[in-house]
């Protein structure tokens, strides 16, 4: 859905999306890194299970909810990527205990 500009010289950061290695850049938010990854990163809603992707990218819409390092319902657009971060696409409601 999105591609990086060539002049981007930021340091590479490796994250894992559903166990798969993805190269993000330092300063990316989780949501931006997911949209740039080329992977199918659609979550599904808690109410009807409909597929969604981030809508506002500024902390307002909560359509970027994602599980980060085992913790669910994080706003992916507000969290910067960190080396080795583990990301799971959230399907439906956040599970108890994560």
């Amino acid at each position, binding site marked *: 859905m999105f591609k990086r500009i060539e002049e*981007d*010289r930021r340091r590479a950061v490796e994250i894992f999306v559903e166990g798969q290695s993805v190269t993000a850049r330092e300063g990316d938010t989780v949501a931006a890194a997911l949209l740039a990854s080329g992977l199918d990163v*659609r979550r599904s809603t808690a109410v*009807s299970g409909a597929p969604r*992707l981030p809508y506002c990218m*500024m902390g307002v819409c909560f359509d970027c909810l994602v599980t980060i390092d085992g913790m669910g319902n994080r706003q992916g657009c*507000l969290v910067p990527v960190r080396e080795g971060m583990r990301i799971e696409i959230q399907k439906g409601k956040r599970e108890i205990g994560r």
Partner: protein
Amino acid sequence: MTSIPQRDAYDVVVIGAGPAGLAAAALTAGAGLATLLVDENMGPGGQVWRAITTTPVKEKRLLGDDYWAGQRLVDDVRASGAEILQRATVWSLDRTLEVGLSIDGGARLVRAKRIILATGALERPFPIPGWTLPGVMTAGAAQTMLKSSGLLPQGRVVVAGQGPLLWLLSAQILRMGGMIDLVLDTADRRNRLRALPHLPPFLTSPYFFKGLAMMREVRARTQVVGGVTSLAARGSGRVEALAYEAGGRRSEIPVDVLLLHQGVVPNVNLAMAAGVRHRWDDVQLCWVPELDERGESSVAGIHVAGDGAGIGGASVAVHRGRIAARAVIEALKPEAGLALADHATLASELARAERGRAFLDVLFQPARQFRIPADETVVCRCEEVTARDIRESVALGATGPNQLKAYRRTGMGPCQGRLCGLTVTELMAEARGRTPAEIGYYRLRAPVKPITLAELASLPKGEDATKAVVRG
């Protein structure tokens, strides 16, 4: 920059590090007031100067001069002695001026003698059929990714809506080598006549030439269709096509990324939760806080500056930030206030920055059908409630947005009404034959952003608090 607040109490807490917050915090800290500037993002700049200290887009002409103008304010605040806290989410503010904030999973409460709310704007809801489909985003979202990560939308890209940001984003995407298949302009042509009385000051404002140049730049490089009166995104599992109507002709085009925008409105959640009185603005079609000429709200000690006080744009926000800061300095440290420009000077600078806005406000009033959608359109994205659900609830007796929560849970999802509130107010007002002011808005309460119980439990607690809940 610190990672937790260094004190429990400050003279001033400024919430939001966009144009207004940066300008305000630089002044109050410069005057010697203990100032905490808290902001939810990774770096200062707000949305308009998003990622200004870290953007990978280094070539200045790509993002434009108005973007880089923010650097000076960031430098000023960093030199001012203000304590700056990034990635801090404020979830509570009350009449006693206690601020609840959360950083990296830990919560803190800090007290302030004065608060300057600079929470800025968010994009007006744009409820069209299919706006929840993956691949449909706001123009602001695309701009955020462009500024902070150098990301360009890929595939068949359509930009639809109206207002200055729509043209700016399109110009930026094209300058950076991105492709836009089509720009659909939904600006209501009937507004032109109504805006005419406001034209003279607009013609002598910077908006005029900048706006014309930007529109020319976009038109030279991509197809633009004006007079668009309906939009509907379609697709199974993701957006695949966009149907639209312009000048009575219906068309449908394939699309991979659809970017929507129809202006911005004040982000009022925190101010409303703090009890600040708001009024409905009949021109900007949104809620704005009731403020005196120095930006002080109906809650003593809480000032509101920037687009959160009513949409005016970045340069107006800077001036409002300075006015609020001056009022705070005058109240807390009058001798430091003497060194600053007086209120009349600041007010005339503000008036100059506001020149031309009245024209834009009327010209870019979104048409009714893009604010009050047809029955099948989703209004509340979180709880997946349609316009039909809401109209049926009104028929059953729901009188306003608060009662509607009990009927349909609108506004009770994680976004807390930010993406449906204005639509719900206008839709219910129309259905009941009342004004938006009579219908009102959701009653907002803390926490205005979700926090975990663990974060709440991590609040430092004194002996009294412990005794209050521990038995025996």
